[in-house]
């Protein structure tokens, strides 16, 4: 049950080598110089090192990303909170809603037994798209700081 053995395993994408939780000391970060040299390579490098060395600018950038992702997650959970979490309350204060019958099935059964699942999946799908867009924005910001 240790993740330590897989460090340096072949076939791992050239991503940030995630230090193993078991490593005795935090392994030094390796900066991989990219093959493609973009026009603003030196600037991108500088931003990148601001990130890794935790300068004020770097930290502000990360804080911005974390805040954007958290705001997105909270907004979508609010949606679920109202959409699903409001149902018991609605059924409790307005019992007549529970008696409405659609196609011979009572509405609460349809909402909870069937409709809840596509709703959850749709929210999840939206989150994955939007979270990836946030990350793309962040990547663009770091790689082309002049924009």
């Amino acid at each position, binding site marked *: *049950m*240790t*993740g330590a*053995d*897989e460090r340096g*395993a*072949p*076939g*791992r*994408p050239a*991503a*940030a080598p*995630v*230090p193993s*939780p078991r490593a005795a000391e935090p392994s030094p*970060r390796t*900066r*991989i110089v*990219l093959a493609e040299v973009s026009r603003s390579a030196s600037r991108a490098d500088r931003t*990148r090192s601001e*990130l*890794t060395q*935790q300068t004020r600018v*770097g930290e502000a950038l*990360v804080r911005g*990303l*974390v805040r954007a*992702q*958290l705001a997105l*997650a909270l907004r*979508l*959970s609010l949606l*679920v909170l109202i959409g699903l*979490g409001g149902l*018991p*309350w609605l*059924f*409790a204060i307005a*019992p007549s809603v*529970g008696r409405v019958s659609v196609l011979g099935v009572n509405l*609460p*059964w349809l909402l*909870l*037994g*069937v409709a*809840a*699942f596509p709703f*959850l*999946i749709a929210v*999840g*799908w939206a*989150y*994955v798209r939007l*979270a*990836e867009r946030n*990350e*793309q924005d*962040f*990547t663009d910001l770091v*790689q082309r700081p002049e924009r």
Partner: protein
Amino acid sequence: MGNGYVVPAIVAVTLVTVGIGFYGLRLARTTSDFLVASRAISPTWNAAAIGGEYLSAASFLGVAGLILKYGVDVLWYPVGFAAGYLALLLFVAAPLRRSGAFTLPDFCEVRLGSRRLRKLATVFVIFIGWLYLVPQLQGAGLTLATVAGSPYPVGALLVAVVVTANVALGGMRAITFVQAFQYWLKLTALAVPAIFLALQWQADARPAVTPPDGPAFRAATTVVVEHRATLTFPDGDVREVRPGDRLDFAAGDPVPEVSGTATDAADWLLPDTAGDDDRGLFGTYSLILATFLGTMGLPHVLVRFYTNPDGAAARRTTLVVLALVGVFYLLPTIYGVLGRIYTPQLLVTGQTDAVVVLLPGAALGDGTAGQLLAALVAAGAFAAFLSTSSGLLTSVAGVISTDVLGRGSVRGFRLATVLAGGVPAVLALNLSGLDVSQVVGLAFAVAASSFCPLLVLGIWWRGLTDLGAAAGVLVGGGAAMGAVLLTVLGPPLTGWPATLTTQPAAWTVPLAFTVMVAVSVATRRRLPPDVGTTMLRLHAPEALRL
């Protein structure tokens, strides 16, 4: 029970599971082989594996049983079991993968650098794991008792021994292929009979689920009571029954009202309403909190996230899991509802968890089709026990061997497995009276009150300190643990104390968050110095190649 297909089907599932496990093990001998191999597989396979491990006895048997017994209010169980993956996706999936943590104790050390917090997390992983294992064994005992007529302890012990031996000897070590296979087996085992059941219901001229006179027996039935209960007969006769009592009903006889279940049609069909009693509403919200937030704290779920290549893949995998699990949870409702028509005697015996296993035979008769479908369902149920308990046992044993016994050797792991499998087996033998899904609900409540705040605050809030985390886990998780122990071992309670202990999440989760934040703010000086670096690692997209 004259069904000759059931036992061979169960044996076949067990042998195939064990067999593939060992075959796969021969192909992938080391942890590293296993991890690298899993990296090559797509999120879909990975997701099916997570789903296969997740859909337990509670999902396969318990949900339908609860629906049969309590009606619409317990539909929150399947909704919550699925929604837990949405919470996991929104708040945990990608950052947890990027943290590189393999288990929850690992995460404590990565994020807060505290060995003591790691030990505390270990205690909770073991407790949750055991609490979750008990209902799996219960389900096995119940299923085997129902389909093969063996005494309850036989099935529970059988699964405990098979799974412990299998995990200890190294088979089924979280091999993606086996778990993915289990998902599709479980889905098929519920979906195919459900189609036949729906057709049969059509052919029977669609008998009403909630007839105006209450549920009635369709055929002459002899009921052997399993749990002490008070029955109210339609003519106003009230009778106390004890385990072992036999009651005979003729075809067309109405089902007596059983104390503690929603025999009354309106009660079963309609949600709780406000007014004279708000305990039902409190219980519903508590259940929603526990299941929505508890999934992220289950030890066997988190381990699988490490097999994703990166954070973005972890997110996509979680989304597919949500979809797979969502499709699966459409099915138990059908069994619970049709159970009202075809197996009302379960309301009297109290063994409502058996509805999934009994329904095909009861509705389709003793012909070959009915028997084959009953065997398919029983095989699916065994797949559920085997896969979930193997995953749980592997996680718990791994944590015990590295964090408690302190040695990573194979012998240490085997010793830990026996330890980890023995305790829930003993518990399962003494807890046959509880509903399978309710015990699982308690495990979710403990996870939601301990690991959910730890993960969410640890990932999104720089201000979390080791002392704050420990205090929150101890107070919130400890309170939930206490409530569980009181429910399971304590005297029977009534009224609000009963509601607060059987559904504790609505007060323990906010408590855990509050304590964690308050103590962290008070101990601000203990902030880990490298929190900025950790945050960067948790949230920076891989595309940056930092």
